[in-house]
């Protein structure tokens, strides 16, 4: 039961929790949280895999940094969509 395997299991657990949360709830903000938890799970699997080389694998680290930035910009768009979706009375006559 090496460290890598433990964090792989935690990562897969987080990924499944996110997927379960995505399928189980209707609340728009909770859905966005579920997506973020799912992405954290995936990134944990990647970083846990990165520890198999002695200086932690720089390629996987770069991939996860890219993934993080992509996740935050997608979350920003999703949250703004959730906010404007909720305020249907918003004046969008333009």
């Amino acid at each position: 039961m090496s460290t890598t395997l433990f964090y792989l299991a935690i990562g897969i657990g987080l990924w499944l929790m996110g997927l379960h949360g995505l399928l189980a709830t209707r609340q728009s903000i909770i859905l966005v949280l579920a997506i973020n938890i799912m992405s954290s799970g995936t990134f944990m699997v990647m970083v846990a895999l990165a520890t198999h080389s002695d200086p932690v694998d720089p390629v996987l680290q770069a991939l996860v940094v890219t993934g993080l930035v992509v996740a935050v910009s997608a979350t920003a768009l999703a949250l703004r969509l959730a906010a404007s979706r909720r305020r249907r009375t918003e004046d969008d006559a333009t």
Partner: protein
Amino acid sequence: MPDAEWLFDGTLGILLLVLAGAALHARSLYAAVVMFIALGLMLALTWARLGAPDLALAEAAIGAGVTGALLFSTLYKAGMDRHKRATPNRIALLLPGLAFLLLLTAAWPLPEMHSPLPDQVMAHLKDSGVSHPVTAVLLNFRAWDTLLEVSVVLIALLGVRQLYPSHGEVPTPWPLMLAWGRLLAPLTVIVGGYLLWRGTDAPGGAFQAGTVLAAGGVALRLIGVLPPLGWHQWPVRLLVLAGVLVFVAVAALTAWLGQGWLHYPTGSSKVLILLIELMATASIATTLTLLVVGEKRELRP
């Protein structure tokens, strides 16, 4: 596992799973968001524990910081009901259990596997222009990924521009917040600049620096020191587009005049990387600030 580490890893792992479960099944939206921010900080700790300092910086700044601010501004602006009534329907827990076993057995042999890439990165590190391997991968070996990623941030802002975000005007700040904001702002600029400069030979880089600067920008905007940034003002547009513009220009010029697409000329890769990093930091800082506090009248054409 080495003797004392299993205690730390065990508690950290359980804490992560409990916080994730609490964030998804909390009674009220407010509690769910607070749990999620705590999860973000725990993740930052996990990345540091797994020996990835770049990620710990990025996760703390991006995951807990900006995402937390976005969540709270959405909660506040949309005036969502803070108490969630509907409890999620319990889809049978058999399916996730089965999937967990499937995925875990798939991942079981992976820790022993080895990849040729890290040694290759180390071998080519000296002629990549920077001495920190992660920055070398991000901005030289896989520069095309980073270019697309900076344009993903830009597209997110373009998407938000179409949504005419609800015009919750910025509340009048308390004197205490004014003082604290004024103190924090220069500190974030210093830390951001330091992270950017150190990115070439130590953990840090454009994205972490951009996010810290964005945090400073949001703080200044909330206390009213920073005027509303408008998409109609060309400096703001130039700042937002700087990252992608410079990257595409470098790609086009190297493809046209140089040896190939994003193939930096031998001597000048360090200068080019620094230029791209500077521009990417500026565009990420401005874009994230606009994403968090960009109001209706600012983002409209």
